[in-house]
Structure formats: structure tokens, C-alpha cells
């Protein structure tokens, strides 16, 4: 009896730990997608990384050498403003959001931090607005991010498995897009599904949400270029 109680308590504790743990979208992906991501020769996202290396040599190498570890520190709050990796890369030349150039450069820079844990220096105060937005019901579907990605991750939405909606793979190659895309594009795809207003690329609402997601994802390894469905 006592032993049984002990095992029960142990199992309950383990379940609690698992609940609290951050899990990359990779853990919810199919075998095929995991295999694609694992092999640089097969991962289609590597095309953008290679393209980014060329662009970096042309446009950035006069000032910058290694970008290792940089992506792990973004998004960040700089002089009171939220700056994403994309935003930082646009400091010299304002490439259009979702342009091949910006995706390639971002992928190249983020790839240099692959495997490094997200460790953005963000305080709880910094993420207050994003935190509120995350729990705000929105759209005709009247759902908040948290309804799927906090309350119900691991469950099935039709044939798909709901992930925690972690940002550590982005920019990522999505099979649905047949190309690389940013976290902002992915967030807009969720909002579209909710029949909600789409926050504009680089808008305050978008940046606040991204900052909150990075804070929430602290410690998860960067996977760029991740492959997702």
C-alpha cells in the first residue's frame, strides 16, 4: 500500500514536471519532418542559410565577422524599444519583411546559434503587454493563444497535434508555405485561423507578442532552420 502511494506520488510529480517543461515544436512533428530537419543535406531551409552567407559576405562582412550567439539574445529591449533579430538586421538596409533577402540573412545569422539556448535578457516587466495579448481571446473563434498552446498542447486538432507554439525554430521552413518564413508570418497564420485581425509585420502588437514568446521559451535551443508542417 505504502509503496503504491509512493509510486503514485512519484508519477504525479513527474507529470507536473513534464507539464511545466518547454517543448520545441520538433517534439510534436512527424517522423518525416524530424528526419528532414536533422539532415543538412535534406533540410530545404539550408538553401536560405547558404543564400544568407553570400549576402552577408556582400553586405555585412565589412563590419561583422562571427554572428555566433547573437540570435540567442534576440528579441531584446534596446533603448526602450523591442528589437527582433529581423529588426536588427534591417538596421542598415530596410529589406522588406518576408523578402528572400531578409529571410536569408536572418536564417544565416540564427543558424550560427543553432543548438544554443534562447537567453534573451528580458524582465517580467518587459513582457507585460505581450503576456496580456497571449491570454486575450480574439477573433470570430474567440480564442487566445493560451487556449491551444498552453491548455491543450499535445492534444489533437483534427489529425494535427497542437504544439506549445514555441518560437525557437524560426525562421523555419514550413511545408505548407514551401519556403522559409518568419515567426511573424507564423503568428499571422494563427490569427488568420482565428478569423482575427492580423497584426502588421514589425508592429508594436507583433513585437510585444514575440518578446513574450522569447521570454516564455527561455532555455529552448535554437533550431534554425527548423522544418515544420
Amino acid at each position, binding site marked *: 500500500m505504502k509503496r503504491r502511494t509512493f509510486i503514485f506520488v512519484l508519477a504525479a510529480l513527474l507529470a507536473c514536471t513534464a507539464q511545466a517543461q518547454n517543448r520545441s515544436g520538433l517534439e510534436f512533428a512527424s517522423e518525416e519532418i524530424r528526419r528532414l530537419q536533422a539532415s543538412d543535406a535534406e533540410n530545404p531551409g539550408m538553401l536560405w542559410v547558404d543564400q544568407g552567407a553570400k549576402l552577408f559576405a556582400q553586405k555585412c562582412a565589412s563590419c561583422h565577422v562571427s554572428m555566433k550567439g547573437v540570435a540567442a539574445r534576440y528579441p531584446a529591449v534596446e533603448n526602450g524599444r523591442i528589437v527582433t533579430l529581423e529588426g536588427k538586421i534591417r538596421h542598415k538596409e530596410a529589406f522588406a519583411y518576408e523578402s528572400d533577402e531578409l529571410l536569408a540573412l536572418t536564417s544565416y545569422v540564427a543558424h550560427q546559434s543553432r543548438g544554443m539556448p534562447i537567453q534573451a535578457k528580458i524582465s517580467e516587466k518587459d513582457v507585460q503587454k505581450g503576456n496580456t495579448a497571449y491570454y*486575450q*481571446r*480574439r*477573433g*470570430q*473563434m*474567440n*480564442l487566445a493563444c493560451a*487556449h*491551444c498552446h498552453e*491548455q*491543450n498542447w499535445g*492534444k*489533437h*486538432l*483534427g*489529425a*494535427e497535434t*497542437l504544439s506549445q507554439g514555441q518560437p525557437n525554430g524560426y525562421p523555419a521552413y514550413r511545408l505548407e508555405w514551401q519556403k522559409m518564413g518568419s515567426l511573424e508570418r507564423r503568428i499571422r497564420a494563427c490569427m*488568420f485561423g482565428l*478569423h*482575427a*485581425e*492580423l497584426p502588421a509585420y514589425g508592429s508594436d502588437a507583433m513585437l510585444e507578442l514575440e518578446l513574450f514568446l522569447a521570454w516564455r521559451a527561455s532555455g529552448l535551443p535554437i533550431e534554425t532552420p527548423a522544418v515544420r508542417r
Partner: protein
Amino acid sequence: MRAAVLLFLPVVAFAGDPAKGKEIVLGRGDGNCLLCHAIPGADRTAGNLGPSLSGVGSRFSPGQLRSRLIDASRFNPKSAMPPYGRVEGLHAVAPQYRGKPLLTDQEIEDAVAFMLTLK
């Protein structure tokens, strides 16, 4: 307001068509209940965010089913079920959907009529 009025209408006010309701509940349109619920008679993979609808016609009255379709969050504030008949008080709805419910009153009655067959 519309939803509130609907809640108190007797079930005979809009006769529901269970055959049409079956299409709404099992189809991929704006009902798409299979995304979250296992449902007898389904021909594709069901989700499991919500409970199975098996036997739902025995467990709930028509009025209870209708009011849950209109706005499930009225019964469970944390519910992840979209409000199929409520349009008021929603936040940041995309312009093309503003003021429009996911299902019309008639579609909700049809869905209820089908669910009542799930004994």
C-alpha cells in the same frame, strides 16, 4: 441580444433538419466539429480538445445543446469552444467576419437536430 432571444425560443420555433445538421457537424465548413470532438459517423480523423459527442443527444436537452453551441463560454469561462451564435463582445475580429456568427440560427437548429440523434 439575438442569442439571448434565441435561448428562450421553444425548440419548435425553427425546426431543425438532422440531415443538414449532419453536414454542418461532420463537414469541413464553419461547423467543423470534428476538429475538436470525436463524433459517431465521422469518416476522418477527429481531434480531442473537447469531449466525444457520442450519446450527447441523451445527456442534453435541445435547449442545453443550443445554448452551448451559441456560446459555450457561458457554461465554462475557460472553454476553448468557439461561440457559434454570439457576435457581441468579441475582440479584434477580422473585418470580413465582424457582426457575423459562425453559424446562422437555422444552421444551429440543424446541428442541434443532428446531435439529438446521437443517443
